[in-house]
């Protein structure tokens, strides 16, 4: 007993799988219980803090009487479109920034500067330039994701060990061959991780994007619910966004495991 307890507090030491799962479950259940308990207390106003049951009921009515699935679909589409657009540009651009110092010198300071500008602040500009239909929502998500993504891709590319590149040079590889046969395959696992992380960020820009003249979507539903003080619907919307994000994240992790079997070490 003393032994197992000391192990829990040994830095970075592994812990038994059962203990891990129990703790992970507790980490999810305890806040839920706390929420349920506090919301049930005498004097807790449902407008401020609806209980889990209220939220569940609201989710159900949203699904059956209203168009929850439609809202999920349109929001997912917007996020994926904005993220995909940014990936399509950021991957090649980051590859060049990470491979050529001249391109880095030319583009990185500007990118670094823009990424600190808040995506929300671009809304008026986006409305002016792109209008108020679907394109504008995709554009906001693009703005929120792209500049971070470029810098991360460039960093992933720079992390490719110089020895891998020089080995190819001494075997007579051309610059193009080094890019396609060494740098890209070597950086792939890190790039997929970058895509996963930036997908998460893209979701966090959903509500901002749906501030722009939307009449559908999870973010829009949350904003509208706020106007009518439907706090349970706000909760439901936020939870749905979190849930979809979690599912997509797990999907990426699964792909990572399947696509790069060579990463696992000695056995």
């Amino acid at each position, binding site marked *: 007993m003393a032994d197992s307890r000391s192990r829990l507090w040994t830095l970075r030491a592994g812990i038994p799988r059962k203990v891990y799962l129990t703790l992970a479950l507790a980490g999810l259940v305890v806040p839920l219980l706390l929420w349920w308990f506090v919301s049930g207390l005498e004097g807790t106003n449902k407008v401020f803090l609806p209980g889990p049951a209220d939220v569940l009921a609201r989710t159900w009515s949203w699904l059956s009487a209203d168009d929850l699935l439609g809202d999920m679909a349109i929001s997912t589409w917007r996020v994926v479109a904005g993220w995909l657009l940014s990936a399509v540009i950021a991957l090649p651009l980051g590859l060049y920034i990470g491979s050529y110092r001249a391109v880095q010198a030319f583009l990185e300071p500007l990118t670094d500067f823009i990424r600190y500008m808040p995506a929300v602040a671009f809304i008026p500009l986006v409305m002016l330039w792109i209008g108020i239909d679907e394109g504008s929502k995709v554009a906001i998500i693009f703005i929120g994701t792209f500049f971070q993504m470029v810098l991360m891709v460039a960093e992933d590319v720079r992390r490719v060990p110089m*020895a*891998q590149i020089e*080995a*190819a040079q*001494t*075997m007579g590889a051309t610059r193009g*061959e080094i890019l396609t*046969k060494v740098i890209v395959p070597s950086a792939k696992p890190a790039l997929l991780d970058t895509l996963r992380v930036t997908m998460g960020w893209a979701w966090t820009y959903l509500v901002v994007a749906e501030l722009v003249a939307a009449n559908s979507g999870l973010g829009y539903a949350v904003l509208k619910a706020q106007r009518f003080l439907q706090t349970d619907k706000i909760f439901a919307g936020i939870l749905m966004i979190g849930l979809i994000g979690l599912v997509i994240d797990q999907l990426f992790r699964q792909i990572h495991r399947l696509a790069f*079997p060579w990463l696992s070490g000695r056995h």
Partner: protein
Amino acid sequence: MNTPAKIEINAVYKTFNEGAKAIQALDNANLAIQPNEFVTFVGASGCGKSTLLRMIGGLETQSSGEIRVNGQPIDGPGVDRAMVFQHYSLYPWLSVTDNIKFCRQLKAHSRDRTSADVEKAAGRADALLHLMGLSHVPTAYPNQLSGGMQQRVAIARALMSRPEILLMDEPFGALDAQTREVMHDLIRHVHRIEGSTIVFVTHDVEEAIYLGQRIVLMAPRPGRIDTIYEVPLPAERNQDMKLSPEFLALKREILVRIRETSGMKTDLEQLERLSAQANQSEA
């Protein structure tokens, strides 16, 4: 000496950085290496061994002077000069066999792509797997191999295109002593049957003597070639020779010279001064 030298290094200088931060990495290096010679570079760290080797490999350019291979001034890396690095040079996403055959994917090696050549290449890869003792792990990934096995793959990959020159920069520096001994005999075997010219950088004097026919001792600040030693051992070597009087005498001579040239003396004086200061402040 009427055979032309394989590698000629003529009055080579190298300065890194400019102005106040300039580092004289090589100061007037001159050396001729004969075909099928096994030369080892030894010296304290920072004396320019890697820099000189990388220049022969075409990965670094000299500030002045000239390096010729087969009489031709070199211009960047070339398939006649293969390089083996200390680590992180294998492609972890490729199996052992695919790492070894990597050069076959490159345009530089695609002039002969008839089916007979492809077959010959497959045979070559197979022969290298056997030569390097890798025939039981052809489909393993580098991450699944020990450090010693990984370096065997790196050497096999370098040999795949039958380079005339093999450049090795502390290739066994990260291996344990037992694995090193095995690798030493292996690389000597490669030298004998492949007929390559080998330039081998190390900071381990024993390794330098056991492997080399000639030892080039380099010294730091500025980096330079200090002394060249002929190794008084027969061409065929075995581990017992490491205890022979000739071996030990040469080892002592080289170690003394490294100590003399490396500036270690001043470090010792510094230490003595520091401990004297500490004693004083205690008193």
